[in-house]
């Protein structure tokens, strides 16, 4: 099947959008679409994006590998699994198509965009909260926010690394890490602090933590070359 490869990646809301547009191009509906051909067209399209050195987001690649997997599975003598995967994909496409249709209808219902409300009057009103609640409400809310069993915070940094500006967070945790390492007193080789680092950003964070602690006069660095540098906690630091 001949497909014209003239799209730009920015024209698509995501891999599902690209698939829907390929289906539309073939002038068939989702139920009847020949999945094998569709997969080929999708992969061809991704290949084209790559050749044109366009920025392809990971979602497109993930979908590509999923499609390849479906195709591979369908080559097996028993391909119930391939059928299941194909149905799943078709289902997602139908669902997304409905979403697109509704979105289109919503985008036509714009009368309210031209109806303006008014800001509340600026009375000199005290906004101070006046109600009373049982303190237990806070415990429930806390459990809701944090989850049970995570009584103390900060929780492990792992789940949040994607959300939080990594550098700042990691530095604060590395300050704790460095302090903990030095609590026993005595000098330690600076390089020993880097031992457990798993990534460059972790190394950088540890280094920044050491600098922060130096600046705050909590640790002392000695030694005349980087590989001989030693770090020590400053005792009797005033609080």
């Amino acid at each position, binding site marked *: 099947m001949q497909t014209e490869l003239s799209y730009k990646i920015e024209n698509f809301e995501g891999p599902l959008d690209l698939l829907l547009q390929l289906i539309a191009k073939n002038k068939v509906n989702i139920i009847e679409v020949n999945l094998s051909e569709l997969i080929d067209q999708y992969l061809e399209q991704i290949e084209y994006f790559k050749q044109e050195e366009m920025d392809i987001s990971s979602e497109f690649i993930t979908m590509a590998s999923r499609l390849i997997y479906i195709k591979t599975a369908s080559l097996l003598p028993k391909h119930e699994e391939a059928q299941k995967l194909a149905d799943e994909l078709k289902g*997602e496409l139908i669902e*997304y198509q409905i979403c697109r249709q509704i979105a*289109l209808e919503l*985008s036509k219902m714009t009368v309210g*965009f031209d*109806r*303006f409300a008014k800001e509340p009057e600026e009375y000199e009103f005290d906004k101070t909260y006046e109600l009373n609640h049982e303190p237990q409400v806070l415990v429930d809310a806390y459990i*809701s926010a944090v989850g049970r069993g995570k009584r103390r915070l900060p929780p492990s940094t792992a789940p949040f690394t994607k959300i939080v500006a990594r550098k700042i967070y990691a530095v604060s945790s590395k300050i704790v890490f460095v302090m903990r390492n030095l609590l026993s007193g005595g000098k330690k080789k600076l390089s020993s602090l880097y031992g457990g680092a798993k990534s460059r950003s972790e190394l950088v964070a540890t280094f920044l933590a050491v600098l922060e602690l130096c600046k705050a006069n909590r640790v002392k660095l000695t030694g005349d070359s980087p590989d001989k540098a030693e770090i020590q906690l400053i005792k009797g630091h005033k609080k």
Partner: protein
Amino acid sequence: MNREQKISALFSVLFACGEPISIERLCEVFDEKPEGVETIVNGLKKRLEEQQLGVMLLTLENTYQLATDENYAEYIKKALDLRRRTPLSPAAFEVLSVVAYNQPVTKSFVEQVRGVDCSGVMTTLIEKGLIEERGRLELPGRPLLYGTTKNFLRTFGISDLSELPKLPNEDHTVNDVGEQLSIEGTEKLGEEE
């Protein structure tokens, strides 16, 4: 206070508050039963229609709000310097439609339907007051749930979610498939988390 005065009082209250006011709050303010408030509300609606003042009374679920007539939008935009206000993106309309028809709904559900990350769009929609948090889903990870706001209703010119456009292809075959799908979808969502 006679009926006409009550209508004027209601107008000035809605005017001063700006945001949607619930019927319960109006009952307290005017020391009236809900039916009493509704009578006043209907009186005001009628008066605003007759007097053509350029504002109208909107019903948004169980709340009321004054808003300007769309016919004068051009002047208001000019006065507020809103001409360069960006309309919603196609992505925003898609996210809104998933949230509106499936609420309360998690971000990962929206992302599953659209097949792409939606964090940025969701944040924008929260900032624009079109969607809001609605508690959490009782699943491991306790993901946040989202729903549409009163402002969403006003923006799309409806007074209730039931006035949203019907889902397309509501005939037996596709609907069957659709239902099965959404069940599959939900299960997957659960497993993932």
